[in-house]
């Protein structure tokens, strides 16, 4: 399309200016800031160069090591279950007539906020002392089965973290299911039928035909899930605020920033988050940019 010399810049200009100010400049400055101490204004009188002190804190302090460990646990559990449930639901729901309604039910959490979902689950996990009527669904089941009520969000180190991760899985499974379902329905039915006619069991069809064909989609979705979960914040902030050994990187960064006003440490933590995300995003981005400018 023919345009004047300046016209293209009028169109891309607003986006580029906004991106330069809100994404490019801060990214550079946050990296620089991670080598400076507490205080807010980088070039203010009280902010000193501290070398690698913040980085030492990030990789050696018990608080941060716990957060890093928890994030790793989140990545493994959350990614495994969202992807597995997503594939499972996509394949199973294709075989029943009430597919649409179930899909809507599982997909709904994608529309509501983490805050809303956190309250929903906080109530499921509600704990009351033995003898009082249990009002949380989970403890009611435990007590009905003859057990003692459990403080789900307090019980460390694994139970409370798993309970938080369940909330994430509940929110994101529908998203995975929708994508896998579209990919599954793109697989030519004749291919699956041919395998069945050759005498393959349903499990074999799934293992040898469906799963390999879904492979590229699974890779993309799993990567997207990893990136999402590395940044996990809201669920932890609302449900435990990192107490009882449930701290995660993003929540720690927020605390350093707003509770302790240590912008230096907070910057270093943010940079860690960036470095953790980059390798996972690169594979997805490569695919993005391949589709990029073609003309």
């Amino acid at each position: 399309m023919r345009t004047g010399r300046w016209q293209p810049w009028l169109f891309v200009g607003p986006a580029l200016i906004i991106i330069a100010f809100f994404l490019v400049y801060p990214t550079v400055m946050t990296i620089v800031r991670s080598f400076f101490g507490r205080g807010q204004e980088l070039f203010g009188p009280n902010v000193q160069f501290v070398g690698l002190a913040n980085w030492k804190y990030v990789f050696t302090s018990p608080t941060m090591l716990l957060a890093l460990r928890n994030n790793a646990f989140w990545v493994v559990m959350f990614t495994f279950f969202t992807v597995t449930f997503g594939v499972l639901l996509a394949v199973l729901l294709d075989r029943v007539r009430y597919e649409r309604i179930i899909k809507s039910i599982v997909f709904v959490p994608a529309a509501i906020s983490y805050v809303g979902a956190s309250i929903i689950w906080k109530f499921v996990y509600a704990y009351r002392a033995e003898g009082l009527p249990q009002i949380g669904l989970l403890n009611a089941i435990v007590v009905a089965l003859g057990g003692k009520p459990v403080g789900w969000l307090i019980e460390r180190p694994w139970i409370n973290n798993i309970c938080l991760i369940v909330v994430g899985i509940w929110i994101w499974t529908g998203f995975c299911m929708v994508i896998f379902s579209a990919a599954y329905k793109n697989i030519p039915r004749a291919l699956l039928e041919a395998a069945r006619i050759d005498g393959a069991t349903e499990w074999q069809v799934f293992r040898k035909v469906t799963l390999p064909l879904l492979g590229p989609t699974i890779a993309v979705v799993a990567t997207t899930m990893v990136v999402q979960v590395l940044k996990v914040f809201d669920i932890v902030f609302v449900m435990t605020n990192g107490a009882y050994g449930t701290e995660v990187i993003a929540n720690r960064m927020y605390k350093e920033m707003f509770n302790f006003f240590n912008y230096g440490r907070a910057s270093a933590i943010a940079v860690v988050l960036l470095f953790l995300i980059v390798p996972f995003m690169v594979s997805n981005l490569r695919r993005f940019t391949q589709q990029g400018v073609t003309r």
Partner: protein
Amino acid sequence: MTSWRSVLARIPLHVVIIAFALLWLLPTLGLLVTSFRTPSDIFGSGWWTVLAHPFDFRQYTIQNYIGVIYRQGLGRSFLNSLLISVPATFLSAFVAAFAAFAFAWMEFPGRRALFMLVVALMVVPLQMTFIPILPIYRRLHLSGTFPGIWLAHTAYGLPLTTYLLHSFISNLPKDIFDSASIDGASPLRIFFHIVVPVSVPALASVLIFQFLWIWNDLLVALIYLGATPNVAPVTLTVANLVTNRGQNWELLTAAAFVSAALPLVVFFSLQRYFVRGILAGSIKE
């Protein structure tokens, strides 16, 4: 032709599916039921006891909703959420559409590199941006204001929205632009009279996406509006309610439902576009 055998063989399938459905449905149902119960009922018995006599309407109350909307400030916050998300959604979609159009159809130096840069910025977690921006925002008196958060949301959404719109707009047939150009239409005219109308499906997906994302956002609001309660969106007010009134389930459940009401309406009425947007962002057509 269905034999008993094949019906029996399918029972496990149905059991698994129903189990999933219950797991996804029951927590939300519990929230909904509880939000209509009196505090003494809530703490006296589990919400599921209502299911024994669900149509006995004397047991329900809307006092919890009145409480959160008027006394806990959720009514004001709901309005704030609208005032934040609607302008921010349109602003980001239009800035992105402008850029996507230029990246797809105009010639200018650095086009390819700049487009790659914009898309590549998807890797940047929001956490990387707060610390340098916040002092500037304070100095410009933008923190605690609607324009401040509109701009922030627009920026944070741009990499993805520009990418999504670009992949749609760049696939439009070349002829429509050529003939319009020959007719002497300016790029601005072409944008508003051709690109926008034919891109409605893609724009709808992006708008819904952005709207839900901004409406449901907590982190960006905490950073830029956290210190100013009278501009707080619902997510922020509800999160504060959890901190301050953590055991008042009658308030928390009603508040959570108020915060979810509009996204649910949008979701159920426009699910098609929402799904399309998700698919456009994740699998290559």
